[in-house]
């Protein structure tokens, strides 16, 4: 699977966020390079939710941080509202970046343990000195805390360790919304919460997104959750894009990238039947991003792999309506 290729990108002017050929590499201790993200492209439209799925270690979180330039990507471009962030000075970047906000998996580590809830939520405002009017800031903090389902009076003066994981995550969301972002990046935000809280958070995110017209980048390893909230889904494998699809594709009889099939199979079914009996069910380790396979990166685990997959990296092509698949061996449905 490769996933270089930009056939799936929408019209340039439409996109709120447009990421092209994003590459993130880290220097490993031994002098080798970790190829965390190797040239992925995607875009997010205003009001759209794009889900990114893939197993741990495939570079999902790295993409999120690279989009925020925390740290800066190795190469590629990140264009937010037609401004290329990669070309900005540090100061301009600091200003532009505020329009994107980030929420992390670990709700407790995301909050400074020495600050109280009221200060945590108002932090952004105080950084930008938009808080000249104290009363207005305070009423907005209260409003936001209420909108994420917290009682401001109860938690106003609390420290993060006095809150539950779910409450901390809500505080994080309120803090991000305080900056009136256009794009919210959610990195595995449900993974550390229990199932009942997960569904509450999903509903909260959906509602907030609708009310504020937010674009959402929703990262998860759980295809079920991603399907629930997304408009489009990007399937990542080892730093590359395997497949980009409209969410409806999951509900219809269609073709998929072999890796997507593997992920679909891993979603527990009520019937207990294997939907794709041809594929190996056992768990396999991801190849090392220090030394990724040549050609298609998925070939070491792919049941369809051929000699061509070793030689040549497949490009993303529209192989079915609303589905871009990077695979040599999946036959196209559209023609």
């Amino acid at each position, binding site marked *: 699977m490769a996933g270089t290729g930009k056939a799936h990108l929408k019209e340039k002017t439409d996109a709120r966020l447009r990421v092209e050929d994003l590459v993130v590499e880290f220097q490993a201790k031994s002098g080798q390079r970790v190829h965390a993200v190797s040239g992925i492209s995607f875009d997010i439209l205003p009001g759209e939710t794009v889900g990114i799925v893939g197993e741990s270690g495939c570079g999902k979180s790295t993409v999120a*941080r690279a989009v*925020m330039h*925390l740290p800066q990507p190795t190469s590629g471009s990140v264009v937010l509202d037609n401004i290329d962030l990669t070309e900005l000075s540090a100061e301009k970047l*600091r*200003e532009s*970046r*505020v329009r*994107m*906000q*980030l929420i*992390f998996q*670990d709700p*407790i*580590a*995301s*909050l*400074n*343990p*020495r*600050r109280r809830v009221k200060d945590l939520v108002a*932090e*952004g405002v105080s*950084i*930008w000195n938009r808080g000249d009017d104290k009363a207005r800031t305070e009423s907005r903090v209260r409003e936001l805390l209420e909108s994420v389902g917290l009682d401001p009076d109860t938690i106003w003066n609390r420290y*993060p*360790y006095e809150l539950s994981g779910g409450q901390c995550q809500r505080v*994080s969301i309120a*803090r991000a919304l305080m*900056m009136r972002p256009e794009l919210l990046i959610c990195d595995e935000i449900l993974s550390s919460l229990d199932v009942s809280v997960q569904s509450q958070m999903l509903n909260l995110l959906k509602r907030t997104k609708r009310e504020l017209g937010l674009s959402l980048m929703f990262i998860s390893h759980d295809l079920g959750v991603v399907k629930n909230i997304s408009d489009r889904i990007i399937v990542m494998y080892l730093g590359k894009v395997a497949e980009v699809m409209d969410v409806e594709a999951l509900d219809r009889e269609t073709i998929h990238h072999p890796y997507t099939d593997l992920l679909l199979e891993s979603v527990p079914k009520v019937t207990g039947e294997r939907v794709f009996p041809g594929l190996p069910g056992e768990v396999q380790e991801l190849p090392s991003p220090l030394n990724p396979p040549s050609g298609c990166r998925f070939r070491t685990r792919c049941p369809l792999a051929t000699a061509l997959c070793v030689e040549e990296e497949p490009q993303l092509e529209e192989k079915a309506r609303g589905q871009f698949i990077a695979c040599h061996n999946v036959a196209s449905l559209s023609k």
Partner: protein
Amino acid sequence: MPQHETRRPLAAPKTTPIPVSFEKPRKNFHVDLLLWFCILWLGAIVLAAIFAPLLPLAEAQDASKTLMEPTNQPPFTVPGHPLGTNGLGLDIFARLIYGARISLTVGVAAVAIGMAVGAMLGTSAGYLRGAWEAVIGVLTNTLLAVPALILLIALSTVLRPSVVSLTFSLALVASPGLIRLARANTLAFTQREFITVARALGAKPGRVILRELLPNVLLSMMSLSFVYISVLIVAEASLGFLGVGIRQPTPSWGNMIAEGLGGKMEQYPHLVFIPATVLFLTVFSFNLLGERMRKRWDKREVSL
């Protein structure tokens, strides 16, 4: 083993828990007593040191006023001198309390300065990395390479020994360890997501260091500060003993112990044992308190 026998142990331990639950509270009770003793001791020393000029103490410094007083008296023998007198007839009890003023001031102030400097330098080095970290690293390693006592003696020959110069010398000795501690803590905290979030919200490096990192780094350094105070009190006493610290007639615990030099200790052991005991109890108390604080805060870190 037959199946029914493996189930037995479920009912068996009924008798055993009783002694276990008995032992635990007793142990805690004992430990608390020790802690309270240390707190009371430090409280008494600190209060006496603060209010020394208001207390009805006998003469501690001016030997011209004690010409008529008995000299080298052991404790509890002369009325008005509960802990006896020294070679000049000065009251040992009063000298201990005035000595505490110097030992505590120097110890606490030096640690406060060392913590402030160490936290600032260590945190900024750990967060900013690069050339700044290299400079701080070289500075720290250089200071650590010089033996502390030799550095202190060298400094006291250059600077005129006074409370202020002693404080700064001791702060200098304490700072490399504190810088390293702050830097290590910073590296750990920088990995936490709240630092990334602060940057995403637009915080500049200065704000990240001051608002996000320092409060956390300082808290984790706090428990060590008590241990450092006790180390520096001992260092100050060592300097006093070697004659390069606070000079006579101003009393400090170190130079009081030094009064026993020259064969006087064999004749008048109380000259040495009384200040040494006070020094020991104070250092012990600071250490124990520091240890308890560390345990307590570690626990909270875990519950985070």
